């Protein structure tokens, strides 16, 4: 091969194929470039390239991934996304998670961007198939997605799932964790008007093909950080906590560390994963406490009638946790997940309780 031919080959490798768009990102920390396939959102393409573009929910809700299109044509999938409410559209502002490039484009992102995530895997898109749907309560369903390509992810991370015929994508935390896994376990709570929750509870979900993007999320657990663990979760927000508990169990982490789990549901009948909690408590060397907070049923401060390792309490989970943890926050790493008002309330009591911001981990989906 001549050097000329090699140069040509190289040029072909470097230049984007005609069906890909070249995207330039001007961020506070420098200028970065990646290319984007048709149909791929700018956020996912950039993250899959390794860039730490600002984002939280990745599904149009939070507004964190806003950017300004300086040149080039783009297409916005979900104009009414809640996170887009405050955008200055006339200036070209968009949510990266809702926007696709129609040609080469230049973006400005008002944040620092790194070329590689510091601790986590670079996310990627994968095909998947929904399997093993299992109803846990009247409105909670556990399910699995068999992935076409295996994925590495940390305890506490989430993925974004797109289902056929449903507009937009939904973020779900994994109940499991690990390396090279070809199966992720998720849990969804059916909400009034919740498209995905209704769909997953319906007849067409089992075996359905979905698109999965991930892993995402920084609310992760790393045993080498050597902290006591405080977990406050409402409803399906418990998913990530289950992966953290599982990871901690593998390390026999509660032999040398304290753990406090507060799980909020409405009534006793709405509780789930209770066998797993009871088992974790059994193996927790007396250092793990799990409390099921019931917001709409007062059974007193007693043990769970079937799962004696689990305590019951009456009230909203962040208030139950605040009362129980007063004076015991020293040295904890706090994980919070659930409906936005619960997350806000929990963060408020953690800060008042003296927990530093670096010791509060949460990924806000809403």
């Amino acid at each position, binding site marked *: 091969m001549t050097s000329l031919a090699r140069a040509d080959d190289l040029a072909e490798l470097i230049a984007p194929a005609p069906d890909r768009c070249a995207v330039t990102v001007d961020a*506070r920390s420098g200028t970065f470039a990646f290319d984007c396939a048709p149909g791929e959102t700018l956020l996912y393409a950039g993250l899959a390239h390794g860039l730490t573009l600002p984002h939280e929910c990745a599904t149009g809700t939070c507004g964190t991934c806003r950017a300004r299109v300086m040149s080039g044509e783009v297409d916005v999938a979900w104009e009414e996304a809640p996170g887009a409410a405050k955008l200055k559209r006339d*200036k070209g502002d968009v949510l990266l998670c809702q926007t696709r490039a129609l040609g080469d484009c230049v973006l400005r992102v*008002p944040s620092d961007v790194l070329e590689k995530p510091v601790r986590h895997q670079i996310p990627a898109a994968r095909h998947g198939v929904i399997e093993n749907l299992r109803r846990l309560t009247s409105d909670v369903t556990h399910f699995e997605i068999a992935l076409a390509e295996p994925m590495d992810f940390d305890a506490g991370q989430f993925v974004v799932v797109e289902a056929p015929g449903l507009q937009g994508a939904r973020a779900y935390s994994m109940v499991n964790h690990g390396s090279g896994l070809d199966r992720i376990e998720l849990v969804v709570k059916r909400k009034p008007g919740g498209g995905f929750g209704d769909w997953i509870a319906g007849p067409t979900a089992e075996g359905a093909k979905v698109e999965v993007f991930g892993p995402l999320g920084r609310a992760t657990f790393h045993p080498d950080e050597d902290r006591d663990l405080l977990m406050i979760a409402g409803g399906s927000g418990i998913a990530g906590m289950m992966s953290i508990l599982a990871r901690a169990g593998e390390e026999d982490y509660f032999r040398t560390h304290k753990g406090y789990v507060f799980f909020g549901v409405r009534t006793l009948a709405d509780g789930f994963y209770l066998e797993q909690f009871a088992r974790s408590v059994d193996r927790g060397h007396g250092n793990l406490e799990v409390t099921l907070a019931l917001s709409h049923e007062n059974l007193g401060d007693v043990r769970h009638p079937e799962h004696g390792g689990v305590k019951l309490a009456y009230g909203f989970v962040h208030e139950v946790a605040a009362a129980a943890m007063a004076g015991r926050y020293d040295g904890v790493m706090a994980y919070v997940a659930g409906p936005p008002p619960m997350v806000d309330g929990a963060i408020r009591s953690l800060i008042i309780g003296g927990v530093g*911001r670096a010791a509060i981990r949460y990924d806000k989906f809403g």
Partner: protein
Amino acid sequence: MGWTYLCDASDVAPDTLKLVDADGVRIVVANYGQGFRAMPPICPHMEEPLEESGVIANCVLTCTKHLWAWNLGTMEMDGGETEKPLKTYDLKEEDGRLLALVEEELTYDFDEEDDMDDDFFSKS
């Protein structure tokens, strides 16, 4: 407008925030235990209403939405991911009454300056 009455000092308990209307200008008054601050009613990050989203502990005001924080004693950004300073009105207390110097309403320019202009992106 000049010095404008906000509220009585006793109206704002230590470590709390209060939203007041100062002759048509919405201002949040913060009592951080060692003094008071008067500021625009929103977080400079994503316009969250600070009287709801803000929490004060150990002189530090934190917006619970994304954990941006400022030390109300020094007015410095309190580390973490906080990227913008908090704006405040000059404030004085006279006979238990809190007054702010309101020449014009302080605002954060979310759309054109600070976060999106050329200075912001300069790579010095």
